[in-house]
């Protein structure tokens, strides 16, 4: 099954390679991986998508937790969550296809962010299915270049993946 595993990582050089190295050393799959610093500059948030049986996913989460640089981890697919991916795509936009591509961008609620006489550069966010569908839709126009961010995810509701369990705003107000 496909799982989105999200973690807080010490923002140190080498931390990312420990995660990537674990996957290659133990033969686990990575479908996508994205990482960037958080509001706390000492922490990075890393989101990865992997596929495996329940046993393998259990090993993956345990092995990741064992890495000294991994501060906290959660398997987003265990609960309700939102996932998004960003697509930047450059498409031929000449002749008849120019209007057609524009219409497709509107249908998919994307944005054209750069224009030339012969090409559009388009930005689109959504889940992986939506991006796949858009790529298929514009294929006929001629794709110049595709850039995808990899999946980002966040849990629904009030709880967040944080280092300390800080009392929420509601609790503070009540206190």
């Amino acid at each position, binding site marked *: 099954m496909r799982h989105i595993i999200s973690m807080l990582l*010490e923002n140190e*050089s*080498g931390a990312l*390679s*420990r995660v990537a*190295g674990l996957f290659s*050393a133990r033969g686990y799959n990575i479908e996508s991986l994205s990482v960037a610093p958080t509001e706390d500059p000492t922490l990075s948030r890393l989101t990865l998508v992997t596929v495996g049986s329940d*046993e393998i996913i*259990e*090993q993956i989460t*345990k*092995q990741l*937790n*064992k890495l*000294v*640089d*991994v*501060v906290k981890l959660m398997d987003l697919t265990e609960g309700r969550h939102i996932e998004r991916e960003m697509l930047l795509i450059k498409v031929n936009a000449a002749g008849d296809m120019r209007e057609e591509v524009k219409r497709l961008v509107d249908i998919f609620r994307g944005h054209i962010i750069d224009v030339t006489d012969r090409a559009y550069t388009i930005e689109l966010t959504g889940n992986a299915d939506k991006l796949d569908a858009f790529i298929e839709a514009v294929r006929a126009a001629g794709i110049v270049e595709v850039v995808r961010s990899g999946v980002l995810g966040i849990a629904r509701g009030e709880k967040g993946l944080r*280092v300390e369990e800080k009392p929420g705003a509601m609790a503070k107000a009540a206190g």
Partner: protein
Amino acid sequence: MELTGAEIFIRCLHDEGVEYIFGYPGGAALHIYDALYKQDKVKHILVRHEQGAAHAADGYARATGRPGCVLVTSGPGVTNTVTGIATAYMDSSPLVVFSGQVSTKYIGQDAFQECDAVGITRPCVKHNFLVKDVRDLAETIKKAFYIATTGRPGPVLVDIPKDVTANRTEYRYPKSVTMRSYNPVTKGHPVQIKKAVELILSAKRPMIYTGGGIIMDDAAEELTDFVRLLGFPCTNTLMGLGGFPATDPLFVGMLGMHGTYEANMAMHECDVLVAIGARFDDRVTGDLDKFCPHAHIVHVDVDPTSIAKNVPAEVPIVGGAKSVLVDMIKAIKAAKKRPDAAALATWWAQINAWRSLNCLEYDRKSELIKPQFVLEKLYALTKGDAFVTSDVGQHQMWAAQFYKFDKPRRWINSGGLGTMGFGLPAAMGVQLAYPKSTVCCITGEASVQMCIQELSTCKQYDLPIKIVNLNNRYMGMVRQWQEFFYDRRYSHSYMDALPDFVQLAQAYGHVGIRIDKPGDVEGALKEALRAKDRLVFLDFMTDQTENVYPMIEAGRGHNEMALAPRMTVVSTDRELA
């Protein structure tokens, strides 16, 4: 007062109580070596090859329970330690390896003796650090020792660029260290312990299977109490030998590929399996599809990833062996229920029937020296109280089968990685830790040559190790597999032009004795053991065709052991004996 990084490094070792550091100098480590020269608290042991330093520190760590320390230079200095680091990693041995690195401004420039030490060692360390600022040095060293020795122990590498060892800062060694991302669990969950005890007390055919976790967590005493309280059979893995007294009647011997018939059959037939500090390694389990088909499994391990990695556990308990055993003993004593005495009696009768096959028996009338005979004699003459290191191969298995370890930390071998060349340098670390004790290195003529240069180190530091070389002129285990599984095509397992080990030992300043006849075995061993202040290299010319039995072949289960030698034992194609 501000100190240089090199001085800070030394002060950290002092504050950490480091007794010995095993190493080899070189350019990037010279500031540190200069600071070492100006003090005498930490004793530096100069090896002949950095691999030897890592194994020696590992031997020291396994024998004492204290972290072993290594100091090497950049580039080849640190790459030479990689085998030793990987060995320690696989066997969870606490090692702290310090490597010099080129100055920070040269990192990434392909400078002389530069290599990415952190990158190269990453897959075989518990954690590693590159110290880029002298102000981080003391805290990083503190963390390195903390990580190496807590939870599931393991090697930690600290890479220190040369300019960091020259730069100055105030020295302050942290008393303690807390890391938000590293908090190993040692205490088992009470609900799980309760479940485990219920299962244990309901067993009809119980089995206790323990590994290196008992040794590393100093839980041998607790395990012994636990097993004796229950009266259950106990087996140890190769790494766990000495965790339970081998001479106790409740001990059924080692299990696994070359374990005893009774241990493996009991594994196959048991209804409750209590695994503590063991990781269900493939050499232990045999074919997983045939593994313990009747058993409900309790698995105690300090490392959560060990649990359910190879075999699912019905009652997993994450926690240190010692702490969980103490809690389980308490719970068993408090429980109203007692083990089922009638069922246990039947179970023991069955185990004793398996035991009566005497699976380790060998040909005692042979005119050639049988390796098993040498080890039996060594066991008797040392009264089972020696520290024994080994290399890897047939001699390792025979040592595990025939030297009965009653105490933990006496049996030191490379079980996980299977590193030939481990035995001699490891023995150096053990002998330094226990200068008055008998330390034997059981080896073979192939393994011992992989770190033979350390004989020179042994001379420099007067280490009176007894080397028991079971010389069959073959890589014995390779030859055994070629005999069994490759139709006796002995591809490159025979070594022509072996050195004369007696002369070799003498050339290094030691005593060498060659033994050709079974009748001379005991005398030679006695002579060696009497020589309290000399290293003695005993070169036993053993039967070339001897194989390790019993054996579970690949793809087979515990109940499918090959007991007797195969009928087709034929002399090898280049017989020397």
